[in-house]
């Protein structure tokens, strides 16, 4: 029992030190990224997990089932967002993404056994996406022949089926819109090194609670560490938050 008391005392001390440091550097208004561990089992069934380091990108810290998400400007970010869900058993359909790097998906942690590729849905795009929404947990839509009415219908279907619809292009009425504003690569010199880590500045927005917008910085690293199961493939740091409470 005494060891527990000692541990608790240490935690309290560490928190106090952290609070003082925050006060001194006037960073108390920064928001800590919400942690997925706080999810209770009931709400965990309504969301698909996202790597803890990327949770700060999304208002609820995970991909809400039934929601429509737009991720623009980075295929790698799309794949990284899906990695944790795929690892925990979700099925993923990629529609109209003929150029997606399957190897990158594998390196970012997607389980390819549960990935369905429909590179060219053709004129049947709406039917294909709808059929996939019936069966798989996440449908990523790239270039597909969809009208705005189709898109709205598909969003409704995703909500009804509890699937996540993730588009890489504009989608009317999306719940969350993530746009990559800037990207910076580390590891490359002039004639030496190799691409290693990547910092992405992502602007978030959308509907409802996400409407106020925020801007975050994420680090995607796909070094050998990313091959290890459970190793953090990305890290998130909140630069500025507007209208969001600490999680």
């Amino acid at each position, binding site marked *: 029992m005494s060891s527990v008391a000692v541990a608790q005392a240490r935690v309290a001390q560490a928190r106090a030190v952290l609070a003082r440091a925050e006060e001194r550097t006037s960073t108390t208004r920064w928001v800590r990224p919400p942690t997925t561990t706080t999810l209770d089992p009931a709400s965990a069934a309504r969301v698909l997990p996202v790597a803890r380091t990327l949770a700060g990108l999304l208002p609820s810290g995970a991909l809400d089932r039934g929601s429509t998400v737009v991720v623009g400007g980075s295929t*790698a970010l799309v794949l990284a967002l899906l990695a944790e869900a795929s690892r925990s058993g979700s099925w993923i359909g990629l529609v109209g993404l003929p150029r997606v790097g399957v190897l990158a998906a594998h390196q970012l942690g997607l389980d390819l056994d*549960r990935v369905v590729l429909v590179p060219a849905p053709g004129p049947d795009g709406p039917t294909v996406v709808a059929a*996939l929404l019936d069966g798989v947990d996440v449908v990523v839509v790239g270039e597909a022949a969809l009208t705005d009415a189709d898109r709205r219908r598909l969003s409704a279907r995703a909500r009804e089926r509890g699937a996540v619809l993730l588009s890489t292009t504009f989608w009317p009425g999306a719940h969350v819109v993530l746009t990559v504003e800037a990207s910076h690569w580390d590891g490359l010199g002039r004639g030496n*090194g*190799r*691409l290693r880590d990547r910092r992405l500045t992502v602007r978030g927005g959308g509907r409802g609670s996400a409407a106020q917008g925020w801007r975050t910085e994420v680090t995607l690293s796909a070094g050998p560490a990313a091959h290890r199961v459970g190793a953090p493939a990305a890290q998130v740091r909140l630069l500025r938050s507007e209208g969001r409470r600490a999680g």
Partner: protein
Amino acid sequence: MSTSDGPPDPGGTPRVAALWVPDWPVLAAMTAEDVPAHTPAAVHDGRRVVAVSAVARAAGVRRGMRRRHAQECCPELVLLTADPGRDARGFEPVAAAAETVVSGIEIARPGLLLIPSRGAGRYHGSEQALAAELVGQVAMLAGYEAQVGIADGSGAAVLAARAARIVPHGATAAFLAPLGIGELVHVATQDVGDVVGLVDLLGRLGLRTLGDLARLPRSDVLARFGRLGGWAHQVAAGTDDRPTALRRLEPDIAVEQDLDPPVERLEATAFAARRLAEALHARMVAAGAACGRLQITARTDDGHELVRAWRTDAALGGLSVARMTDRVRWQLEGWLTGHAVRSAGPGGGDPEPAPLVRLGLRAEEVVAAGAEQGRLWGEAGGADLRAHRAVHRIQGLIGVEAVLSAAVQGGREVRDQVHLTPWGEDPPAVRPAGQPWPGHLPPPAPATVLAEPQLVQVCDVDGRKVEVDARLQVSGEPAVVWWPPQDGREREAAVTGWAGPWPVVQRWWTDGGSRQVYLQAVLAGGQAVLLALRDGVWRLEALYD
């Protein structure tokens, strides 16, 4: 025969008949290559002769000879290349001929059949009658001369077949005892190399005959020589009680129906599909069978034959009537609406949507119900079932080839390392991914791989094209990537960082060889790209976006 485990109980060892076709590889090769039987022939694997026909053996050719040595012995010798696939294919008629005599056989290896002979011997009257019947049927139907041996246990049966003897019940140990230890090699159906090594070792230890080996305590042999030694001791002692793995051949089950009047409307086909599915299901239940594939055939009234096969996962609950009806309906939906129509006949092409006049269902890869292999971690869960169903639905809509599954395989280039196959197709062997593949591009892999590489120009500060020489020296530091004019606009971007050049030279000894260097570059604006120089032309291969 005093073993530490006590004397083996001969009654516990099953009676097994072995049917052996001598020199099978060379016989199969001679049949395939139309070499007359009186010509001396041998099969060689590129280094040594591996099988010799009887005529060639009479001329002095032996297994293990070099090609030149064999031709020295017998100048008119026909040398044929080894081909395990051909051996297995050619043996099928022999197996079929044996199956006319007995109901269950095991093909131990091409050239050797194992048959549990207790029941079959009783049925045919005696073991002698069974052996005569087997030899006669194989000679008559397949046209090969075979030898049959019957003994206790499959190992002893193989050796009895080589001697063409029927060893009486209980006399197996006495039959085996004087045989040389090297005979074990003929019994082995797998790990032949290991068995050769074991035989060599046993010989050097002074065990010259199987009887010598059988006299040793089994536990000592097992402790000293491991699993293989234990097996050898069992064979030598005539207590090889491995059960024969029988195969049961099931014919395909098919149902067909003429549609009169021709069916044009989807609703009408659903009824036809339902009727056919019920008929097929009833026949499969009557046969007590399940199937691995369902083939749907439809004939249109302009004479086109449309064929498509579906894998029927046992994980999907096999084939129920409703599921079969669904499959057929999706398929017909695709065909009748003209989406993704493929002709199975020669000439290919996409026939116009047309009314259907005939519909057929065929269950292929039929196995006894309950014999399907489950998955290691149990059956698929609900989510997997839903996903599989959705994928099959889409395949019915837009075609089997339009829905892909991906796997990572070994390779050096970005595209080489990805293996895409139509969903549900059994993927063929891929290059092993676990190997090091020296020279492959370092991770992270590009997230966007262009289907068709873009032609670009990479220039140095002075505007000259960047060249890479044989020593991998760049002629100048890359400074600008320039895209040729497209829609009247040309585009260029400054290079802010770069790495390379990394050479990838592979398969240059074949027609499909390639020789290129890769360059990673970060352009102004933060985008990273993968550039390749091949045949003096720079190409944009992929984007790290």
